[in-house]
């Protein structure tokens, strides 16, 4: 399988009045043809900024280092007019906020046809017909009427469908969906995910699904990459990640998902603490302050991604989660020495 997108040691930094903030700290991965990759992480893990950087959409104070190649063409540092030939055409993106993501003073039809005009040189009736087809594809009721409506006349779910239809207009090879369901009601979320699953079968596009919700990933993706503090913590096949998580963070994420089968009297697990301050990332593992298996090496040395099981990689010094201490001479830090917040959770 050929890679549509190859990312190597990508870093994203923002200049702020309080100093430079590193949102993404060197990640490398491939997205192959027709593959669906899930990027999972909490807010502030850098997952959105990673793809904003790939699309050249970073805020003005942001800069990108490293490499991101679309079919061998370097995207980082590419002049905007060249980049414009690729984004919207070969690589399309769907954003989280469907409420504000569409231009309020332009009709839906216009916002869709302009994409075709730009990339395919299609005009007037052809473009409108194509736009109508796409609206039908994403199952918008009364699609023909919608073309003449303004965004504020549509519901949130419908707007998100419009966003998806708009992204698919040029049959992109890569579709990046940044939390496409977050702003929607739960029932609508389910409908949109179902739609995306269907579309994945119909189109041949590779899909990157950015989300904080592991459940979303389970239904749609082939591969999962778990992000934390601007780094990948664990990557691998979706089944491996779900059934045999190798990283304490992944395990924490999984245990904090509510399950219907579980006894309702047990409290839902929550990973203690907060995501790290990106301005002052610790020297060692970014997850050290919240990890229950933290030991000296985690504080001193940054763990790199390494193959834990065939096809599954983790960035963790632990031998395995079953035997958390990799080196008998370097024992884990005792509960008594920890700040009370963390201790409470552990002894609970």
């Amino acid at each position, binding site marked *: 399988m050929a890679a549509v997108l190859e990312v190597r040691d990508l870093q994203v930094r923002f200049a702020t009045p309080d100093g430079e903030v590193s949102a993404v700290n060197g990640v490398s991965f491939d997205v192959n043809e027709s593959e669906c990759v899930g990027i999972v992480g909490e807010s502030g893990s850098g997952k959105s900024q990673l793809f904003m950087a790939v699309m050249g959409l970073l805020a003005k104070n942001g800069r990108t280092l490293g490499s991101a190649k679309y079919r061998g063409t370097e995207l980082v540092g590419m002049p905007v007019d060249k980049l414009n030939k690729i984004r919207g055409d070969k690589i399309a993106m769907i954003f989280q906020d469907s409420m504000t993501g569409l231009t309020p003073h332009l009709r839906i039809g216009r916002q869709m046809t302009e994409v075709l005009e730009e990339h395919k040189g299609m005009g007037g009736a052809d473009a409108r017909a194509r736009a109508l087809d796409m609206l039908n594809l994403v199952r918008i009721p009364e699609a023909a009427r919608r073309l003449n409506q303004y965004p504020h006349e549509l519901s949130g779910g419908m707007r998100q469908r419009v966003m998806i239809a708009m992204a698919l207009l040029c049959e992109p090879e890569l579709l990046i969906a940044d939390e496409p369901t977050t702003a929607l009601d739960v029932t609508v979320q389910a409908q949109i995910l179902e739609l995306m699953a269907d579309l994945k079968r119909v189109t041949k596009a590779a899909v990157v699904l950015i989300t904080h919700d592991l459940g979303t990933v389970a239904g749609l993706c082939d591969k999962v990459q778990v992000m934390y503090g601007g780094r990948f913590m664990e990557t691998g096949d979706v089944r491996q990640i779900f059934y045999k998580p190798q990283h304490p963070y992944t395990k924490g994420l999984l245990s904090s998902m509510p399950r219907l089968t579980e006894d309702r009297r047990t409290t839902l697990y929550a990973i203690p603490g907060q995501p790290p301050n990106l*301005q*002052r990332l610790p020297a060692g593992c970014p997850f050290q*302050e919240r990890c229950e298996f933290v030991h000296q090496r985690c*504080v001193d040395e940054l763990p790199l991604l390494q193959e834990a099981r065939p096809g599954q990689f983790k960035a963790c010094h632990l031998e395995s989660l079953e035997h958390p201490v990799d080196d008998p001479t*370097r024992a884990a830090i005792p509960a008594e020495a*920890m*700040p009370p917040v963390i201790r409470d959770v552990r002894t609970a």
Partner: protein
Amino acid sequence: MATDITGGTKRAALIEKAGEEVQGRSLWQDAQRRLFANKMAVASMIVLGIITLMAVFADVISPHAYDEVYWDYIGVGPQWENNHWFGTDANGRDLFIRTLYGARVSLMVGIVTTLVALIIGVTYGSIAGYFGGRVDSLMMRVVDVLYSMPLMFFIIILVVVFGRHIVLVFIAIGCVEWLTMARIVRGQTLSVKRKEYIEAARASGVSTPNIIRRHIIPNVIGPVIVFVTLMVPVVILVESFLSFLGLGVQEPMTSWGVLISEGAAQMENAPHMLIFPAVFLAVTLFCFNFIGDGLRDALDPKDR
């Protein structure tokens, strides 16, 4: 689990240190820091301070009296040997001290009138915003109607009809300029009232006075402070405008508007009479605007 005391303390120390470094700053500390980082705003504060001090100590600085006529020096340019640093006006009075007396009038009008507008506007706006509903729409309708009127003309009529008394100028301008203040306060109160954190505070049992003190006032006060700083120059301008038309303060008292008006009449043969008061007025307005802009940026960082 085995114990490793050194590792434990190191980790605890590490966490503690991180906690110290990212110690939260309050909104006001943050705003203050940003305001003082704004060079233009700081420079404006200094310049404005100097002008204010000069106005207050005008009689100490200058050897002349503001209404003393020097018959030998009528409408002459700056003279160092006689201490007429800005020259004299068309009646032979020292322009330096008159400019500073003008500063007194302008600054006083600016501040007192803004206070009048502040009191009316905040009271009116917060009542409308707090009660909401029909009271609000009625009260704001009144503001809308007043807004669409040529209010400057009413100020002029007021001043003409009731005589040119300085207090009247305060009241007339204040009565007109409160409208925007009322709108701002009302809008802010209305939006803050509906915010989730107010509901959260209420739900967790915070008393109403505490909610108003801790949550509503701090959130309403920011835009009000900014607006107040931007309103002072507007009021100074209105007073100068009235004085320019000959409707403001009366001789021998003076204000920047009067001086500029006199200067404009003499600009062909004595341009200094126009330039000095005009520069003082412009610089003062500049300063207030820069401070206002600085405050707005400091209090509302997303607007940068």
